[in-house]
């Protein structure tokens, strides 16, 4: 069996509450990403999906209390020194964010900034460095890379900036690329180009991708496996074909039904009533139970475990596990 590239075990991230307590916003999250695999974490705001991803690079705010384990190629990321985590960033794990404008320095040329990313680890001679920058820009589909490298970030369109940011992330050939809502701010035609770019990078260089998104269609477009998060918990995970075609968890089912689709005519959408719980005071039992149309007695009494419903497919639901009674 292949050793996982990234292995998250029992990750818990808590923030202090005004009342003096601790509110866990990520609570007992475990999953693996295999080398070369594309995995999606899907969830709504407050589900803990972005924090989970940021923890893998120690990018959480200092007041966050983090416990559990994040293993990357056998090393415990949470225990790494600032020096070691810097060494890991870029070559091991690289990250792209939603807003490429804030990720670039506005007064430096794009090529210069990508070059800096190279210098952090290798500091190649000037000519080799410039050649590598051009190579990276053409890798992400930026035309006329020589001219484009000399342009400033504001001279790029939104889609071009996201490509350039991806080029910067790929500069040191990371084994894992974490992409946090990489297409959310983009127009749909540009989103389609960026998704194709990521698919191509994965195929060409074998870089594994952990994609964080609220958009189920983006998961269907790019990922082989998906992790569904709700209120700080993983509620379902498994192969994309299974989870999105025959979801086991009522939350995943409801989420899929609430998405309007361009290939379906108008009609009433199945909305999920209510709102996600406050992390400081989660409901008793299953966290989705107050909004679940199929909730039963056991659901309020006891939280279900995340357990197998089929090979490689797990769900955190008494009903799906056949133990509702």
């Amino acid at each position, binding site marked *: 069996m292949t050793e996982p590239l990234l292995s998250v075990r029992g990750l818990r991230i808590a923030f202090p509450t005004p009342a003096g307590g601790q509110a866990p916003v990520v609570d007992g999250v475990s999953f693996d990403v295999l080398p070369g695999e594309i995995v999606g974490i899907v969830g709504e705001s407050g589900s803990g999906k972005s924090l989970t991803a940021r923890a893998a690079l120690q990018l959480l705010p200092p007041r966050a209390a983090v416990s559990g384990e994040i293993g990357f190629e056998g090393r415990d990321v949470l225990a790494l020194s600032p020096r070691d985590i810097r060494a890991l960033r870029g070559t091991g794990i690289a990250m792209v964010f939603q807003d490429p404008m804030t990720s670039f320095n506005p007064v430096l040329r794009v090529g210069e900034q990508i070059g800096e990313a190279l210098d952090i680890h290798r500091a190649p001679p000037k000519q080799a460095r410039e050649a590598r920058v051009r190579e990276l820009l053409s890798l992400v589909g930026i035309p006329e890379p020589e001219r484009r490298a000399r342009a400033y970030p504001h001279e790029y369109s939104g889609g071009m900036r996201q490509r350039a940011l991806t080029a910067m992330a790929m500069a040191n050939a990371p084994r894992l690329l974490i992409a946090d809502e990489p297409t959310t701010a983009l127009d749909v035609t540009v989103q389609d180009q960026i998704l194709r770019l990521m698919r191509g990078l994965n195929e060409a260089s074998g870089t594994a991708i952990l994609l964080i998104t609220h958009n189920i269609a983006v998961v*269907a477009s790019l990922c082989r496996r998906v992790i569904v998060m709700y209120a700080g918990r993983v509620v379902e995970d498994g192969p994309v074909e299974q989870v999105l075609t025959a979801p086991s968890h009522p939350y995943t089912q409801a989420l899929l039904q609430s998405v309007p689709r361009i290939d379906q005519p108008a009609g009433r959408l199945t909305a999920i009533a209510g709102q996600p719980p406050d992390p400081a005071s989660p409901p008793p039992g299953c966290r989705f139970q107050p909004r679940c149309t199929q909730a039963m007695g056991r659901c309020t009494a006891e939280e279900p475990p995340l357990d197998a419903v089929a090979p490689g497919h797990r769900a955190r639901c008494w009903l799906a596990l056949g133990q509702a009674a």
Partner: protein
Amino acid sequence: MVQVGDLRKHFSQPGLFRRGQVLRAVQDVSFDIAPGETLGLVGESGSGKSTLGRMVVGLLPATSGSSVVAGMEVTRLKGQARRALWRRAQMVFQDPYSSLNPRMTVREAIGEPLRNFGIARGAEAEAAIRRMTDLCGLPASALDRYPREFSGGQRQRIGIARALVLRPDVVVADEPVSALDVSIQAQIINLLQDLRQEFGLTYLFIAHDLAVVRHVSDRVAVMYRGHLVEIGPAERIYAAPRHPYTRLLLDSVPSPDPAAEARRQALPRPEETPVQSTGGGCVFAARCPLPKLAACFTQQPPLLRQGPMHLVACHAAEKASPA
């Protein structure tokens, strides 16, 4: 209910280096919306759809052209007449939080238009406020709380209640659900549909999400760089788009169904070239995958009838048309 004719908005660029250049945000756009109808308006960022929406209800002055809403010529209204318009036409925005006064309770926020327009006060106003909060799915306990105490979805309900308390006939909704989570988005879409039934509202529904627009619209209008390039019945636009830009948009939307998504990815797709200025020709010519005609480079195509209630602005589609 709404008649827009040759509406145009040009901005002169203020910057140091581009002074004197003109940004053509909206170029001679015309359409009608029948009473009780929902017209969806789609386009990418910078297409001019929001600018157009604001001009339709007079929130932004037009450079030229006309917008007649509920019998009133919006572009020339002043003073009292303008107030009369806003009793008949209201806007719902993407971020209701920025349009709600943080120091006002929900009751004050929803009741403010009633007071400003001298429509109701006291017990009568309270009854109107309660009915509208109830219709918008807000609990009565919400009335004494402040906007910051609510989630995005609840705030949008407050924004909608405030817009509808004057019982307008026309509502321009500009990206009303794009800031919301998927499950909440469905709640608000359903609410807007229910309110349309309840009050017989006429909607101009502006959004970049093509699936949301299909879901709510009777007809759909597509904008590209200031121009209306296609308009027609929603079913036709989605099933048989005639403008190459509409087709590109629809082909770019991923599907949440893995099998349908695999089929979409297998579609042959022309590589896109970056947008260049096209001089005097069609605004879409630089990205257009169709075989081009000479006219594509010399003249912006007019909107022409391509079927029942279906208008398309494309030289090439016109030629390719079967009948």
